């Protein structure tokens, strides 16, 4: 069982950037029936989301969050030994978005830089990956960036997803220290569910996939370049496998629901989180929710939630249990002590890395 224990690594900072553009869920009553939109809001808890502009990417937001974090923590950039970016919304098919952020942050060439191809679970896998690298190297400080702009691949008439998606990126600073509380991480996967959340076309399996809309099994029109979620399968996986993961985590760590101050969960939707909390007897006041304001922001969502909830709270130590789950299927949890002074409030930013927009081969 892939359980990891890191005794000398601390999460010493986190920041979140999101676009200022707000989409009200109510506005979808112009496209879908009022009854449908009202039921969606009731079940998911989402009343508004944030969306990037055409050329703004997850790396733009990730850069802003990381830059703010480095400045706030007064970090010498030459000390950053690793930069890992977890995303399913890269700027290009290649290179990875981590390379773009590496350049923009002005980090040293003595930095391990790569992307992780994951969505909603990217944060728990990212922490496990970066902490493992630090544990087996002389890296003292590292940055993990997580972010997605899933709205760009969601068909605008996909009533199953278009109202759900929010866009954001987060940056997390990890530091090696002798006085850290352990980070304990447990991750799982089931490739049998690879079709449950998928963009089937445009990559190397079907590079010339059609852009024509087709009627899908659920009666919704999409094309092969769109995100497709088999909602019932994903929800069913979540309400059975996530409670099991949490119970296994508590058993493996000799802890229980009462041992944690905060449950920072992937903000999938309100109904799912309420079901999980009910099954695990997690008190509502220990599970912060930000779905109403930001929707489902994919892998960034646990940090979006902490930045929104604790971004202006000073000096409170939270024994936090993080949990995230989604595309792959993949899911995981990890525990860490977080000081709220290390959590920055949410940053709004609409800037675009203009140099990165390559409109013609002549520009290269």
């Amino acid at each position, binding site marked *: 069982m892939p359980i990891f224990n890191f005794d000398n690594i601390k999460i010493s900072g986190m920041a979140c950037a999101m676009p200022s553009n707000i989409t009200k869920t109510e506005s979808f009553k112009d496209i879908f029936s009022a009854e449908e939109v009202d039921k969606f809001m009731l079940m998911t808890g989402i009343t508004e989301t944030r969306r990037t502009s055409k050329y703004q990417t997850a790396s733009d937001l990730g850069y802003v969050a990381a830059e703010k974090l480095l400045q706030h923590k007064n970090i010498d950039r030459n000390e950053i030994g690793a930069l890992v970016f977890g995303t399913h919304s890269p700027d290009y098919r290649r290179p990875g978005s981590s390379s773009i952020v590496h350049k923009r942050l002005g980090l040293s060439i003595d930095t391990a830089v790569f992307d992780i191809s994951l969505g909603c679970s990217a944060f728990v896998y990212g922490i496990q990956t970066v902490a493992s690298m630090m544990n087996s190297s002389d890296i003292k400080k590292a940055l993990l960036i997580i972010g997605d702009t899933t709205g760009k691949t969601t068909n605008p008439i996909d009533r199953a997803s278009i109202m759900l998606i929010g866009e954001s990126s987060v940056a997390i600073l990890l530091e090696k220290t002798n006085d850290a509380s352990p980070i304990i991480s447990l991750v799982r996967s089931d490739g049998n569910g690879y079709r449950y959340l998928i963009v089937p076309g445009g990559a190397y399996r079907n590079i010339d996939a059609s852009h024509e809309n087709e009627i899908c099994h659920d009666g919704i029109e999409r094309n092969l370049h769109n995100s497709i979620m088999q909602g019932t399968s994903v929800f069913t996986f979540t309400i059975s496998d996530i409670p099991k993961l949490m119970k296994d985590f508590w058993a493996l760590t000799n802890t229980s629901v009462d041992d944690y101050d905060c449950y920072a969960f992937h903000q999938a939707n309100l109904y799912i989180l309420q*079901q999980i909390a009910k099954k695990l007897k997690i008190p509502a006041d220990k599970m912060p929710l930000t779905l109403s304001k930001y929707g489902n922001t994919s892998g960034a969502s646990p940090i979006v939630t902490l930045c929104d909830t604790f971004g202006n709270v000073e000096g409170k130590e939270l024994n936090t249990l993080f949990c995230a789950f989604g595309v792959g299927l993949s899911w995981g949890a990890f525990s860490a002590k977080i000081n709220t002074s290390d959590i920055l409030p949410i940053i709004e930013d609409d800037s675009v890395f203009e140099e990165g927009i390559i409109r013609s081969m002549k520009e290269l």
Partner: protein
Amino acid sequence: MQNRIIEILDSIRPDVDFANEKKLIDDGLLDSFDIVSIISELNDEYNISIRVTELKPENFNSVEAILNLVEKLKASN
């Protein structure tokens, strides 16, 4: 058990005639939130775990089909 299952279904979708409908999924009477709500309630009520592999229309088209699924999973527990 059948009456209890109908009670559970009624609590989730009181507008559907569960006792008589035989094509709950095929006729689109239940959406994904309904199905997941039903699964969650059945899991809790009967201490079973309905997995993704059981998500077939034939398992949820009628009360009888749902009853068969629950009995099968209880027996395999």
